[in-house]
């Protein structure tokens, strides 16, 4: 028995992670690769700010600047923010609902590897003739005329990683609907689980339009079709519509999990039940729904006409209502609570004013007539960085600090965490606050340089200084992580001392089967309910019994890898090279062969036997 507890060699550990189907390990994979892409995207941001530090700079060329700018946006949204969100979801959601894993562990692993190979494919463009250079929105009128293979890398890379995201979203939907522990009703689910649920539904409905858009773009570029080519009777605006029908829900896909993380943090460190729980749930669902009805506000200046502009402007402003409900609920959660300012709580408190500022400029931009002035200026850049960095990134940093002990069993250093927090927050406001005014003074976005004596010098310099402060903050965080991992001081179940939800009732990190016996949930914040009755652990909902576990498998990796190979063939096939067809065939054979093996080979998993779960302290007789 318990051979799995043995110390493993380095190679065995690597193999373990390559084949794992355990949601906790997949969370770590998402965290590592998302962190890696976050650093790459951050470096690109630093190059942008260095180039714009002084007027008429020649640090990078105009063409290269376009590539950096495009890859900064694409990497940060698709390859950094999305996987980091999935990292926290994978680490926490099954624990919060009292499940032993997600509904489809194999698909969970497949989703990760598809994302990973898509991201790698996209970034290989740097070394293979140039990255995409048409902006992260890749508007068809620009991208169809882009030289080289940059846009093809964008189309194929995002198609592969988008598949992974869709799979992950469906997986979480099924998990949350089907795998809640006895007593965990919908209205007892923690807010982070609720936001994951809504976000997964958004992924389900929002990613197909992107897939369609990318397929049309692929046909236009690879096979000479004319969906977006105006000269040949196509319509370039269709891409904009398809992209934003996906793109607007996408920003809610990113922000709602951050809202969920902050809701957990506010309740935990105010040591109070979340104020207005049901209105929070309602607001989350409403934001998700409204998110689909507002996409055209990104296109006010394309000439939709006054009626469409007016309707979309009003719909957009309506989103401020549920968001306002949330902001006030968080404030009222802190009100009268016994607040403890830990590092996650610092992020949460700083998030409220920061995100509100981003929201207010959002309302300004939503006013269609005024938008004609702001459009394509640095004002827009300032706005979306205030909501995405001030909302999503602060949320992820808070979440990583908050859940680090649950994921790795160690506490991040408090002092270094505070240094990261203050430098990052101050750096962030330095970088982006001034950009509102640069925009209002007329600086257009996406320019690679600006002229001297136009009143833009000081603002841009301040912005660059701020960017370096943010980079310093992230560097300190990396050092913090290294120090913490080397020291490796293990902590117990509930290291923050005030855990409210199920994940804090089990060891950190949890055993690979999560719950020896599924817990019985008797109210909102179930662990807190038990604590208030003087208990130290959850009441089990079932007698101790054998636990059915899935087997590890390398197939998800090979399925994704086959697509990665085939994508290279498809990409160079445009140049009429003869060797590309075999590459496509080999790649697809790897993918479909792996799928075939998965289909025909019986894999029933294995059982952890009851006797192996019992020890001297715990005979499993409580239920």
């Amino acid at each position, binding site marked *: 028995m318990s051979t799995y507890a043995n110390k493993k060699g380095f190679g065995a550990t690597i193999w373990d992670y390559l084949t794992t189907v355990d949601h906790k390990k997949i969370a770590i994979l998402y965290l590592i690769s998302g962190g890696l892409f976050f650093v790459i995207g951050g470096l690109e941001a630093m190059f942008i700010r260095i180039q714009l530090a002084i007027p008429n700079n020649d640090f990078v060329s105009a063409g290269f600047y376009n590539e950096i700018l495009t890859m900064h946006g694409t990497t940060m949204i698709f390859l950094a923010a999305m996987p980091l969100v999935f990292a926290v979801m994978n680490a926490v959601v099954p624990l919060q609902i009292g499940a032993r894993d997600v509904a489809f562990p194999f698909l969970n692993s497949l989703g990760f590897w598809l994302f990973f190979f898509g991201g790698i494919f996209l970034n290989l463009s740097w070394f293979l003739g140039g990255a995409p250079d048409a902006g992260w929105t890749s508007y068809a009128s620009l991208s169809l005329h882009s030289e080289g293979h940059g846009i093809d890398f964008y189309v194929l890379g995002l198609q592969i990683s988008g598949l992974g995201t869709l799979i992950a979203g469906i997986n979480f939907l099924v998990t949350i609907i089907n795998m809640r522990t006895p007593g965990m009703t919908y209205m007892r689910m923690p807010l982070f689980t609720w936001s994951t649920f809504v976000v997964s539904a958004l992924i389900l409905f929002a990613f197909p339009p992107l897939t369609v858009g990318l397929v049309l773009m692929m046909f236009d570029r690879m096979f000479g079709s004319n969906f977006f080519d105006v000269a040949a009777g196509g319509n370039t605006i269709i891409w904009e519509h398809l992209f934003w029908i996906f793109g607007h829900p996408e920003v809610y896909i990113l922000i709602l999990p951050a809202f969920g993380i902050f809701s957990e943090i506010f309740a935990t460190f105010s040591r109070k039940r979340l104020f207005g729980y049901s209105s929070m749930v309602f607001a989350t669902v409403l934001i998700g729904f409204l998110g689909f009805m507002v996409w055209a506000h990104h296109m006010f200046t394309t000439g939709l006409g006054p009626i*469409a502009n007016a309707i979309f402007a009003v719909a957009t402003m309506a989103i401020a209502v549920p968001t306002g409900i949330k902001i006030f609920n968080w404030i009222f959660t802190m009100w009268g609570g016994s607040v403890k300012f830990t590092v996650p709580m610092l992020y949460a408190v700083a998030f409220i004013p920061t995100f509100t500022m981003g929201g207010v400029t959002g309302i300004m931009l939503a006013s269609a007539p005024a938008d004609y002035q702001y459009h394509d200026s640095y004002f827009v850049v300032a706005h979306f960085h205030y909501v995405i960095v001030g909302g999503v990134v602060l949320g992820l940093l808070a979440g990583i600090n908050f859940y680090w002990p649950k994921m790795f069993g160690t506490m991040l250093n408090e002092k270094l965490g505070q240094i990261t927090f203050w430098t990052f927050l101050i750096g962030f406001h330095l970088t982006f606050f001034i950009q509102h005014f640069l925009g209002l003074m007329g600086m257009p976005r996406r320019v690679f340089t600006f002229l001297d004596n136009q009143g833009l010098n000081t603002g841009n310099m301040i912005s660059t200084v701020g960017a370096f402060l943010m980079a310093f903050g992230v560097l300190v965080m990396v050092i913090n992580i290294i120090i913490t991992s080397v020291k490796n001081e293990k902590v117990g179940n509930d290291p923050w001392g005030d855990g409210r939800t199920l994940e804090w009732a089990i060891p950190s990190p949890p055993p690979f089967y999560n719950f020896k016996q599924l817990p019985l949930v008797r109210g909102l914040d179930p662990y807190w309910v038990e604590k208030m009755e003087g208990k130290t652990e959850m009441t089990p909902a079932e007698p101790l019994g*054998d636990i*059915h576990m899935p087997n590890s498998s390398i197939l998800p990796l090979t399925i994704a890898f086959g697509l990665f190979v085939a994508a290279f063939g498809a990409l160079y096939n445009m140049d009429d090279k003869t060797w590309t067809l075999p590459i496509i065939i080999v790649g697809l054979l790897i993918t479909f062969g792996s799928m075939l093996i998965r289909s025909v080979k019986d894999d029933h998993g294995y059982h952890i036997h009851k006797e192996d779960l019992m020890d001297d302290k715990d005979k499993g007789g409580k239920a």
Partner: protein
Amino acid sequence: MANEQSNSANPNVDLKYRRKKNAEEMKHQVISFTLMIFFTLIAFAAVGIEGFSHWFIKPVILLLAAVQVVFQLYYFMHMKHKGHGTIALFLFSGLAVGLITVLVFTTIVWL
């Protein structure tokens, strides 16, 4: 397994009840199937027989199609049974989102 609950290992439990249920189910399916064929015949007839205006034929066919979809979902794909609430929620919210998008494109958006 101790952690997997089933209602009964004995397939003969409630056999009578199940038989009755199945017979009822079968009746519903046969009725809806007949109706669907009948609707299809009407649709073909409406196009085939001359004298009806387009403004009459098109909405009638679309209406019949909608009813057939409902039959398909509720009688053949068991959505009328218990425990399909979540499925219905997602189906109809997806439908709502999609239809509103189409509505937007056909009415207010210049494409």
